[in-house]
């Protein structure tokens, strides 16, 4: 197991270096700069600003300076928000995005796993078809449609829940959680159903039933352990995807998370913020993939080789 972890960590370094280099080259080759604005900046002012942010140095020097800073944990100041450092922006947005992702994954697991089990226990019946068709719909409906529909229904017509915000009013976390979690719930449902169907047909389940165990014990204690392997393998990438991909939901509900900063940074040519968040997201994705591999390996001995 330790060997697996070490091996994966060793490959992470060149991956991260490639991410920094490519992102650096891409942001600097994109047309337009951080100080372009509707009210044109005079050449003198532009020169002062470039000097202030070290943008007048040769590109390789900027690159090496940046890399040197990153190694020391300094991602530099944001160009868009001059009084804030990239680290501050990431640290402000991250807890919120993380909280949202955790709620969404819990919601997805709760809904998806139950629906998947139901489908696997009664395959090819209404208990199977209805949740699975709904799941298919859940995968297909993008959050950009689901979010506003939920807001209209529960926020405007029924007036049950706030239409946006995060932690400002009671219940304002519910709609974003559902919006972000639904697609993942649908995946979980289909993965659980597949995994469970496979396990439920195996001999040890038959033995468990023959011993006279209650159906609940058979399903939850015996079958679920094996049946959930695909779901667990999916959780790592899902968590990374939720963290990096919450932009749409954050925008719809006005949640001050990291996703919005990331995408806005690209539009604003906020070089340091784009680089900082790309590095940060790469680290997250690498760690979550590693984590889910480790969990999957500890559950299923076959994967340990």
């Amino acid at each position: 197991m330790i060997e697996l972890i070490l091996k994966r960590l060793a490959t992470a370094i060149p991956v991260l270096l490639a991410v920094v280099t490519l992102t650096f080259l891409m942001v600097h080759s994109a047309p337009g700069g951080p100080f372009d604005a509707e009210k044109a900046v005079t050449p003198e002012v532009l020169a002062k600003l470039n000097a202030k942010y070290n943008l007048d140095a040769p590109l390789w020097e900027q690159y090496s300076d940046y890399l040197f800073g990153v190694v020391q944990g300094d991602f530099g100041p944001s160009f868009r928000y001059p009084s804030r450092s990239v680290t501050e922006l990431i640290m402000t947005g991250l807890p919120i995005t993380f909280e949202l992702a955790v709620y969404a994954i819990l919601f997805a697991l709760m809904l998806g796993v139950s629906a998947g089990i139901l489908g696997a226990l009664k395959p090819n019946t209404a208990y199977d078809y209805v949740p699975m068709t709904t799941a298919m719909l859940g995968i297909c409906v993008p959050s950009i449609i689901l979010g506003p529909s939920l807001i209209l229904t529960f926020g405007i017509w029924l007036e049950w829940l706030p239409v946006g915000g995060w932690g400002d009013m009671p219940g304002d976390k519910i709609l974003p959680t559902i919006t972000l979690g639904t697609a993942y719930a649908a995946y979980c449902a289909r993965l659980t159903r597949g995994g469970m169907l496979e396990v439920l047909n195996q001999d040890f389940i038959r033995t468990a039933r023959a011993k006279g165990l209650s159906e609940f014990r058979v399903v939850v204690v015996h079958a679920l352990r094996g049946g959930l392997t695909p779901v667990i393998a999916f959780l790592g990438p899902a968590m990374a995807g939720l963290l990096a991909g919450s932009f749409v939901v954050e925008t719809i509900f006005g949640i001050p998370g990291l996703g919005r900063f990331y995408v806005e940074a690209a539009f604003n040519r906020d070089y340091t913020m784009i680089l900082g968040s790309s590095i940060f997201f790469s680290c997250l994705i690498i760690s979550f993939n590693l984590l889910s591999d480790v969990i999957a390996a500890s559950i299923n001995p076959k994967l340990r080789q």
Partner: protein
Amino acid sequence: MKLRFLLFLALPFIFLSCGPSESPVSRAHLDSILYMGNGTEPQDLDPHVVTGVPESHILMALLEGLVIRHPEGLDPLPGVAESWDISSDGLTYSFNLRNTALWSNGDFVTAHDFVYAWRRMLTPSLGSKYPDMLYDVVNAEKFNKGTIKDFDLVGVKALDDKTLVVSLENPATYFLGLLAHYTTRPVHQPTIEKFGEIDTIGSQWTRPGNFIGNGPFTLEDWKLNKVLIVKKSPSYWDAKNVKLNEIHFFPIDNTSREDLMFRAGQLHVTSTIPPEKVEVYRKEYPDNIHIDPYYGTYYYRFNTDKEPFDNKLVRQALSLALDRRQIVDKVSKGGQSPAFSFTPPDPNSYYPPTTLDFDPEKAKELLKEAGYEDGTFPSFELLYNTSEGHQKLAQAVQQMWSVNLGINVTLANTDWKVYLSRQSVGDFSVSRAGWIGDYHDPKSFLDMMVTGRGNNQTGWSNSEYDNLLIEAAKSTSRLDRYGLLYEAEKILMEELPILPVYTYTRIYMLHESVKGWNPNLLDSHPYQFVSIEQ
């Protein structure tokens, strides 16, 4: 077992059974809190660094200049300056500062604070983007461009703590209006120097707890991308007349979300309305939708360095082939009026020449005269930045030029920064543009088209035009000045390096409980005149 599973499934929805809650807007008349949609997250709160509209809304609460804007758009009202004298040649202004003007930490606001603030804004190494707001002051431009180093030569002096004397290069009759702009307001020297040097960008002085202002409100809280809260300042000289207790500025750049928040009672006022809803809301919420005139022009730029747009006849033909009424009635549909001049017409002051016309026949003749017979005109690209509104308008214009003149136009839709950089390096033929005046004077439009100005971006240069603007600057009478500017604008509309399309309107939703929010051309709503009633 089934029941257990069903319960399990239903669990997430049990959360949903929370009852309806009282909306912030419905209780605002009790706590006097104004909830405002404010566009994007403010970049910073340093008046010498920021350039955006959202920042200007916040700075209006936190800092006060020598004068303040009139809530109904009339001449400026006394602010920190209680009174002022203007010399007969219009070149010297002496301001008498009020004894009761205080910073939020209790310090007196003095004339020295203004000198320091203006010096800071003009300091070249700060890299302020708005130094030209003070270029009418003697030697201000030279100091800002580094040709003189001694700030004592710049025409702003504190005679004593309460007297500020400003000397101008030209009798700029609009000068008082500039002093209401946030860039010319004072900053608190000890605070700035506690957190950095005079030319430090992005120091921590603008954070809650650090910010010392002199406006009717103080900075209470600033949650990034969430809300910025200002609270009534007890030390403000006119605090007894300030009716709001707090203002919550929400950075909401998504118009649909802002719209939903308004409808759910979470906002009193929005920054805009999704364009597709304007017509519906005019019927459904006639008391809430506001379509106010605005001091801005939507226009197209020609690249006059490039063939065939270097030919005046071509530019005139393209203008004549444009049915502006059709555009505002059928395309933009936000109550805008067709623009027949660059400066938006103001019946109360400057009324520009409005000679542009829609005449496709004449357009064809002009094109022929320019040497382009039927179908020989080279196809070109119309550049705009990604936005549904710009796209629709570009399509309409494409259609009009195609039908009326047989010209083939391709559309180039690019991201904002690409669009800006292509314009600044002249890599375009025709591009969309818009301009909102910073102050209420035709100069804030016409000056832009002077040879070599940063926002000219058309390559157009006309010495007669430039000279008329110089003459106008020297004039002490407002009417004479307007006369000269009128002549200049006539040249601009004859030459047409730019093609005015429509005059902007400010479209927003406003809750009926908000009082004192008056329409005015600069969309300025000083909060000390705003209140919330039941």
